């Protein structure tokens, strides 16, 4: 009974908005909320692993997200202008465009991540304050580079035709792109979980999150693993960036900073260092944001803060926090 109680409370809260809206709106909002949650999860997963492994709070994560979005935007724009892959009514071409954008963004982000880790973060290991300051400095530089290269204004992201519009499932309008985002998010979560629990690298990373010094004593170069985790986290952020750009159909230089705040809230809710915690936290944030934005538009941001504060009061280390 004690184990079932939190699940029951969660289910009750999940169904609570039904009391204030009709079922169709509820389903639409739920799909949008799940999609938003999955996209935030992509950002938060990298953030939480980077913190868990090396105690590095990476403020530049949001800027990597923006870079990913802009690189994906450029690739999508190029492919669309040259061959019209986005406007063509062909499913394979549309999917190919999305895949190419994501791939390019992730490759660039891996490079950027390795650069950031080697040049910016490594010299200040173990000094929290300087890590925060220096990654913030890096954020300014990376964001300004975006403004310099792509210009400071919002731009319209080309969305492949297949992912535009909606499906009509039993009189309920389900937007297409959010469904794609949800599927992708689930795949990424499964991928990370399998990687962490089924492979040797994952084992070492998990052990490193638990106790980094012991890993070094056992003869593993934790710094090398950390660089990989940092690069992988950056790639996830870039993936999130491309998806978010298509989701909101626009790119702008400040998008990463806005997402970073959501990601922080998610990481705090889920517990620093826990991937499952971030997923849960991201879904909570995404869903509650969408429900509240529909019911009381002005309180949308406030609800996330309120949830964060509530969870911190009940469980100071977050839902899945190790409490170290």
């Amino acid at each position, binding site marked *: 009974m004690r184990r079932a109680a939190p699940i029951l409370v969660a289910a009750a809260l999940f169904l609570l908005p039904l009391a204030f809206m009709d079922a169709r709106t509820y389903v639409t909002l739920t799909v949008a909320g799940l999609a938003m949650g999955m996209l935030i999860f992509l950002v938060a997963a990298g953030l939480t692993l980077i913190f868990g492994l090396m105690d590095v709070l990476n403020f530049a994560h949001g800027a990597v997200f923006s870079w990913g979005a802009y690189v994906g935007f450029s690739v999508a724009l190029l492919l669309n202008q040259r061959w019209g892959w986005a406007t063509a009514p062909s499913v394979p071409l549309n999917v190919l465009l999305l895949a190419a954008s994501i791939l390019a963004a992730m490759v660039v982000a891996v490079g950027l991540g390795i650069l950031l880790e080697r040049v910016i973060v490594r010299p200040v290991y173990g000094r929290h304050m300087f890590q925060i300051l220096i990654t913030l400095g890096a954020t300014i530089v990376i964001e300004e580079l975006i403004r310099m290269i792509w210009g400071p204004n919002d731009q319209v992201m080309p969305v492949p035709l297949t992912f535009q519009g909606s499906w009509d499932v039993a009189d309920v309008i389900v937007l297409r792109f959010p469904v794609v985002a949800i599927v992708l998010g689930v795949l990424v979560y499964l991928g990370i979980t399998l990687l962490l629990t089924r492979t040797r690298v994952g084992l070492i990373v998990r052990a490193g999150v638990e106790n980094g010094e012991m890993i070094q004593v056992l003869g593993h170069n934790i710094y090398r693993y950390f660089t990989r985790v940092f690069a992988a986290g950056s790639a996830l952020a870039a993936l999130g960036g491309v998806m978010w750009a298509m989701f909101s159909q626009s790119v702008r230089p400040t998008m990463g900073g806005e997402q970073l705040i959501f990601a*922080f809230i998610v990481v705090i809710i889920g517990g620093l260092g826990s991937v499952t915690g971030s997923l849960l936290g991201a879904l909570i944030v995404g869903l509650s944001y969408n429900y509240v934005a529909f019911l009381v538009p002005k309180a949308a941001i406030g609800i996330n803060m309120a949830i964060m504060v509530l969870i911190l009061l009940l469980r*100071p280390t977050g839902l899945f926090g190790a409490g170290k």
Partner: protein
Amino acid sequence: MSSDRLTPVQLARQAERRRRFRQPAPYLRLACLVLAALVPLVVPSFQVLDLAAKIAIFAALVASYDVVLGYTGIVSFGHAMFFGFGAYAVALSLGKFGAPTYAHLAAGFLAGVALSATIAVLIGAFSLRVKAIFFAMITLAFAEFALILAVQLTHITGGEDGLSPTLPGIFAVSYNGGRLGGIPVTGRLVTYYFILAICLVLFLVMARFIHSPLGRTLQAIRDNELRAEALGFRTFVFQIASSSFGSVVATVLGGCYVMWVRYANPESVLGIHVMLDLLLMVIIGGIGTLYGSIIGATFLLTAQTLLPHVRTLAASVFAGSMIMQRMTERWLLYFGILFILVVFFFPKGVIGTVRDALAKRQATR
């Protein structure tokens, strides 16, 4: 009392007191104050006076940030938010309740301080209980929330347009107090000296704060939290006290800022740019030096005042080159690079580096 009965701490203090006036530091500080006091008398230009007032406000603001960051070791991204609370409290109190009086002004300051103290204690209680690093994330989220609130609550805060209150009595633009020794006494001048006096008082209070037993405990926590805890200090209570103190000082300065510029909008008092400026100033001046803030604020504000001139110059030199123009437009980029370089190569800032050099010279002598 003979000296052998004194405790080591008392002995150290005695030695410090004896040394105090043989070092250049107090005279330099006095010179800064005199310089600031003389500005309106010597240079009649409003631009210079404006710069001097802003330097005074920001030097004190950066010092209050340094109390939290440098002397307590907690990274807060909400300092600009508390500055904004003060600014908005004073602007609202003066602008929304009929003709402004001194009582409105005082009430604005008091309301701002009360609000900031409450919120600072609450944020500290949520986050510092777990981990000091939570504080950075949570203050960032709260600062963003405050910014959104200020933009959205248009009927109270004026939204993006902000508020432009008028000041009462001797602070009003229209005030004319005749001439005093050949200098016309205007509302601007009175406001300037009022702000300067407040900044001076705040500086003295902050110096007192960091040298008090409480301040020393904070530095102990910063240097080794586990040890301080083992000595029996409830570290998070001390950290809350420090962050709340810093926030309250920032709030008062926010009020002063509104008194000077007579204008408050989300971008200028709450925005992330204010926070970035603060960080840059504190890094340049030196973390944990308090008076380094004067150098940081002077450097950055002067640079920002001169930037438009540099930009027009660059535009005329590199006319027609799109990429060069974009590069000169993005001055924040260079500040970012400067920021990283300073953190890497001068992590102690100007004052800290100079202090180290002096200490080395003294040791070798």
